[in-house]
C-alpha cells in the first residue's frame, strides 16, 4: 500500500463530452491523478460539505484542487465558489475555473469570489491538449500545496 496519496481533483462539469476531454488529458499522469466528477453545482456543494449522497468521507475525500465550469445546473459555479471561499476549512483549496465563457464579466466575478485560476476551454484538440499539459505541469509539478491532514 502506497503511502503517497494520489492528487485528487474534484471536477464539476455538466457537459459529459467536456468531462471526457478533461479526463483524457489528465489520465495516465505519473504519481497518479484522481478525478472525481460531479454534474451540477448542488452536487459539488454536497460533495464538499459531505451532504446527502456524499456524506461518507471515504467516498468523497477532500480534493486537492477543484476544477469547475461556471454555468452549472441548479447552483451556479460562482455560488459554489462563494460558499467554498466562505468556509474556513475549504478556503485553502485552490479553485480553477474551466469554462467556455471568456466574458470579462465572468472573469472579474470569479476573481472577486476568490478563484485561483481562470481557464477558457479552447476550441481545438491541440490547444486543449497543450493547455491541459501546462495545467498538469503547473499544478502537479511546480506548485506546492499544504499537505493534506491524514485521515484516521
Amino acid at each position, binding site marked *: 500500500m502506497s503511502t503517497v496519496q494520489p492528487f485528487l481533483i474534484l471536477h464539476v462539469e455538466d457537459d459529459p463530452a467536456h468531462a471526457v476531454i478533461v479526463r483524457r488529458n489528465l489520465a495516465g499522469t505519473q504519481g497518479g491523478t484522481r478525478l472525481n466528477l460531479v454534474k451540477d453545482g448542488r452536487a459539488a456543494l454536497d460533495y464538499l460539505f459531505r451532504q446527502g449522497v456524499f456524506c461518507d468521507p471515504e467516498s468523497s475525500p477532500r480534493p486537492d484542487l477543484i476544477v469547475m465550469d461556471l454555468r452549472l445546473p*441548479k447552483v451556479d459555479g460562482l455560488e459554489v465558489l462563494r460558499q467554498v471561499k466562505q468556509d474556513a476549512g475549504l478556503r485553502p483549496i485552490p479553485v480553477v475555473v474551466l469554462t467556455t465563457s471568456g466574458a470579462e464579466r465572468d472573469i472579474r466575478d470569479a476573481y472577486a469570489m476568490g478563484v485561483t485560476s481562470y481557464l477558457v476551454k*479552447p476550441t481545438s484538440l491541440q490547444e486543449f491538449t497543450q493547455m491541459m499539459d501546462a495545467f498538469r505541469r503547473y499544478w502537479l509539478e511546480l506548485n506546492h500545496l499544504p499537505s493534506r491532514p491524514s485521515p484516521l
Partner: protein
Amino acid sequence: MQRLEGSSTGSVPPRTAALVAGLIAIAGGVTVLVAWLFDIPVLMSVQPSFVAMKANTAAAFTLAGLSLALRARFSRFAPARWVAGACAAATAVLGLLTLCQYLFGLDLGIDQVLLQEPAGVVGTLAPGRMASVTAFNFLLVGCALLLERDHRAMLPIQAAALLAGVLSLLPLVGYLYGASMLLTFGHHLQVSIITGGLFVLMSLGVLLLHPAEGLLRHFIRDSVGGWLGRRLGPFVIGIPLAVGWIWLRGESLGYFDAPLGTAFAMVAMMILFACLICWSASRLNLATARQREEALRVGERQYEALANNTDTGFVVLDGNGIVVSANEPYRRLAGAVRIEDVIGHSVTEWTAPDERESNARAVALCAARGSIQDFETVYQHADGTRTHISVNATVGTAPDGRIHITSFCRNITVRWLAEEARGRAEQLLLENSSRFRAFVEQAPVAIGVFDPAGLGLYANDTFLRRLGLQGLEDVVGRPAVEFFAPRFREESRERTRRRSLGLPVPASFESVAVRPDGSEFPVQLSVSAIQLANEVVNIAFLTDLSETRLAEEALRESNQLVESIVDNVPLMIFVKEAKDLRFVTFNKAGEALLGLDRKDLLGKSDRELFPPEQAAFFMAKDREVLDTGVSLDIPEEPLLTARNGERLVHTRKVCIKGTDGRTKYLLGISEDITERRLEEDRLKRMSTHLEEKNAELERFTYTISHDLKSPLVTVRTFLGYLQRDLQSRDADAVAEDIDFVLGATEKMARILDELLQLSRVGYRTNPPTEVSLQEVVTEALGLLAGPIATRGVAVEVAQEPIVLTGDRTRLVEVFLNLLDNAVKNMGEQATPRIVVGVESSGDSLTFFVRDNGIGIDPRYKDQIFNLFEKLDPDSAGTGVGLALVKRIVEVHGGRIWMESAGPGQGSTFRFTLSRARRGAVMEAAG
C-alpha cells in the same frame, strides 16, 4: 339834537292835561247843579252881580267834561268811546236846540227841564236859558268831541274848539276889566265867569287830545319854532292882558287920561315884547352854539377813531420834543402800554439810546427847515425789541409863537431787517466764499440759509430752481414764510417764533411750498441751526416731495410690472397673511389650477378650500416656515382642486418679513407636476422594461456564447480525437468520437431552433383570435400523444367553457411546453397524472397544469424560467421551453409562476391570460 330848555312835553303829558280839563269841567258842572239844587248863589255866579250859570249849562259841561275825560284816557275801550260819543252828541244837540230857540223865537221847554228859574234874572232873556254864545260854544265843543277821532278833519275840529275858547275869552276878559263893558254887547254874551273859564279849559282840552296834529303840532315840535311858540305863547296872552288891566286901573284911578294911557300902554307893550324877543334870541343863540360844539365833539371822536385805526403813527411834539398828542398806532410804535405813558413824555424815552443824538439833530433840523422827510430812527421797547421808524414831520407855529411838530411815523422794521440781512448775506458770502460755496452752491440738495428771524440770507442753485426763483435776490431778505403756500404760513410763523424763543421745533417737517407763479408742491424740510461767520443761522434742507411722489409712482409702476409677472407666470403663486393664514394674493395660474376665481379665494383659509387632512398639512407647513423663517421645499404634495381633480404640486414656501423684521406674509410658489410625474412614471416603467429587456438580451447573448460554444468545443475537440483515432485505426474510439460530435451538433441544432421560436414570440404575432381552452389543450395533447402514451400518463382537462383571446399558435405552444415539461419530469412515478384546469380568483381566471412528477426545489422556482436553464443536466430539454412559455404568457398580458412542495412532490405551473373569460366562442359567420 339837544333839547331846548322849557319844553312842555317834558312836564305833563298832553292827554293827562286834557283829562284834568275834562274832570274840572265835570266838577264845575256838578258843583253848579248842586248849587242850583240847594240854592247856593255864590257857587253859581261867584258874585251876586254876575250872571249865574244855568242848570242846562252845568249839565252840558258835565256831559262835555265826561266826553273829554273819556276821550283823553279811555278811548282804548269801546264802551267808553260810545259813552264819550253819546255825551258829545248830547252836548251838541243841547247847544243846537238852544240856538234854535234864540233864532226862531221858540220855547221848546228845554230850559226849565232841570230846574225852575224865576223870571227876570240878571242877563237872561228867558228864564233858565243859557246865553246864545254859550249854546253856540256847546255846539262847537260837542261837534269837536264827537268828531275828535277823525284825523282828516283835525284842522276844522281844532279850529272849532279854538273858536269856542276865544269866544269865551272875551267875556272872561270883560269880567277882568269890569263887567260893565259887557252890556255893550247885549245879552248874547252874557255868560257866567265860570262858564267862560270852563270853556277855555274845554277848548284847551280838545286841542290837547291831538297835540301832534293840526294847529298845536307847531308848538309841540322839538324844534326852534316849537320852542319859540311855546316860549312866546304865554307872553303874547299875558302881556296885553296885564298891560290892558294896568291901563284901565290907572285911568280909573285918574292917574292919566285915555290918550296918555294908550300911549303908556303901547310903549309898555313895545318894551316888554322887545325884551321878550331879545331874551328868546339870546337863548336861541346859546342853543345853536351848543349844537355846534356837539357836532365838533362827534367829529373829534370820528377823527380819533380814524387816527387810532390807521397803521401810521401820528404824533404832535412841542418844541422840546415833548408829546402833546399821539394816536394809538404811535403808542404801539413807542411800545407804551397806555396813551398816558406817551403824552407829556419826551420822545427820547423810547428812542433807542444809539439813536437819540441823531433824533435830536433831526428835531433841530426840522425846526429850522420847517419839515423833514423820510427820517429814519429806531424806537426801543422796554423788552429790548427795536422798531425801525420812518418819520415825515412838519413844523407848525401856534398863535402864541410856540412851535409844534406834527409827525407821521411808519414802521419799517421789516424792510430794514430785509436790507440788513441782505448786507449780512453779502458779508457772509464774502467771508466764506471758498468754503461755503464749494460746500453748498452746487449741492444737489436744495439748501436755504435763514437768519433767526426767518429772513433769507442765501440759497443755492438747487433751492432757487426748486422754488422757481430767478436769483439770490429773490431769497435774500425775504421772510421764509413767503416760500410757503398761504395756508401753511401761520405754521411757518409759529415755527420761526418758537425757534427764536429757543422752544423745541421739529427738526424735520412736511409742508407745501409755493413758487412765484403760484404753483404749489409738497416739500420736506430739515432745519438745523449752525454757527456761520460769527452768527447763528438756520440751514434748511428742502426735499421736493413731488419727486418722492414720482419715485413712488415709479415704484408703483414697478409693482405693477411685478404684479403682471406674478399674474402671468405659469406657476401658482399665492400669498397668505402670516397671522391667520388667509390668502391675500392669488395669481392667474393659481386660479386655473384650483379652478376657482380669485374673489372666491382671497380672504379664505386652506380649511375653507381643501379637504381637512390636506388643509392641515398645508397649514402645518406654513407654520413651520413662519416659525423658523427658513424657506421650505415640498417636492410633492397632493392638492384636491375643484375642477382639475387631484393634482400633485411641487411647492416652495417662503417667509416674507415686513420692514420691522417681523414675519408678515407667507409666499407660496407651486408648480403643477402632475403631468410631469405621470410622464416620469411612464418613463420609469419604460426604462425598467428596457432594462429588463436589456438584461434579457445580455443574458441571451451570454447564454448563446456559452451554450453554443460548448457544443462547438465538443465538436472540434472530438474531431481532433477522431482524426487521431482514425490514424491509429481504433474503431471503438472512432465510434465514441463520432457519437460525441453528433450529440453536440444535435444540441446545437436544437438550440438554434428553439432560439428561433423564442425570437418569433417577440415580434411575429398573429392577429388575436378567440379560441376555446379545450381546443387549444386538445391540440397540444395531440402533438404530445406519443410521449404521453409511452409513459402512460393520465391527462385530465377541465370542461368549463372558457374563451381565450390571442395568438392561437402561441397559446397552443404554452400548453404544449408545460405538458411536455410535465411528462419529461415524471421521474419514477408509477401513476403519472396531469391535470389542466382553471380557477377563478376575483375577476380573473388562473390556469394551471399540475403533475405528480419529481417536483422542483422551491429554491429554483424563478430560475427555471430563465433561458437555457436546466435543473437536470441529464434531461433532454435545452432550457428554452419554460423561457418560451413565460415569454408568450407575458406577451398575452399575463404572468406565470411555479408552485411545488419540493422534490418528489409534483409541481404546478399557474398562469393568467389577460383576455380570457368564461363563456363560449362566437362562431364566425360563414
